[in-house]
């Protein structure tokens, strides 16, 4: 969480010109104004055709004050778990540890390790076990979390997890090549994460 502290200290605080605040980004434009003006000069009677930009939903503006809610998009290759859901906080299992994301979080890209994602909305907490993936947090308090496989924690079978953990610990001890060791290590990591998800 304090990874960027050293880089920030190195830059002198000269004011708004040298550092991009999250307040600088307005909402993305809905139409390409230079194109429309050029068109009008050439043929003022015909209406300018719409460019692809006009069909896209504009990026939400980065508000100047802290927004009260975080908008979460949690997607998997085969389904969209959460789509533009307004929540209070999410805790993502980043490779650097459990990272809490509140509205107004600094823009971050985090690689996720196998672990539990918890979504906090009021008093409800929904927990998903994620196999691995990425979390993109944007300056306008929109968080995109992508994973290959995510299951609610109550769908995990404890016996299978224990068996898997023993099997991979054995494989790790008997592994010879680098690749085998890496695979066994992945197995041990995933199963221990599953285990702590079940107990924690």
């Amino acid at each position: 969480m304090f990874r960027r502290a050293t880089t920030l200290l190195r830059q002198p605080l000269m004011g708004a010109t040298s550092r991009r605040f999250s307040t600088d980004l307005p909402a993305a434009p809905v139409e390409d104004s230079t194109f429309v003006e050029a068109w009008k000069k050439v043929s003022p009677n015909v209406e300018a055709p719409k460019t692809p930009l006009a069909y896209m939903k504009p990026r939400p503006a980065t508000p100047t004050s802290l927004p009260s809610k975080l908008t979460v998009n949690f997607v998997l290759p085969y389904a969209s778990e959460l789509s533009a859901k307004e929540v209070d906080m999410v805790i993502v299992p980043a490779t650097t540890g459990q990272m809490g994301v509140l509205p107004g979080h600094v823009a971050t890209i985090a690689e996720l390790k196998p672990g539990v994602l918890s979504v906090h909305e009021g008093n409800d907490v929904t927990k998903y076990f994620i196999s691995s993936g990425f979390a993109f947090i944007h300056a306008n308090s929109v968080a995109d979390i992508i994973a290959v496989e995510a299951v609610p924690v109550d769908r995990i079978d404890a016996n299978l997890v224990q068996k898997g953990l023993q099997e991979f610990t054995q494989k790790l001890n008997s592994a010879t090549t680098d690749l085998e060791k890496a695979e066994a290590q992945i197995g041990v990591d995933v199963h221990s994460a599953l285990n702590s998800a079940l107990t924690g």
Partner: protein
Amino acid sequence: MASAGGAAPFWRAAGMTYITYTNICANLVRNCLKEPFKAEAMSREKVHFSLSKWVDGKPEKPTIRSEGSEH
């Protein structure tokens, strides 16, 4: 994200790509699910594709690979 400059994650050091790593993780998680969900998940693991090598601008006979899991 390695804060120590060049230190690659162990799977990268062993020659594995991120996609291979993340697919292995996903398969392991799917194998640990409770029953009705496990059957649905198994259908997601299947890959089915046809592969053909090209020699001198012409494709050779395609091989069809239909597997249940990564390996």
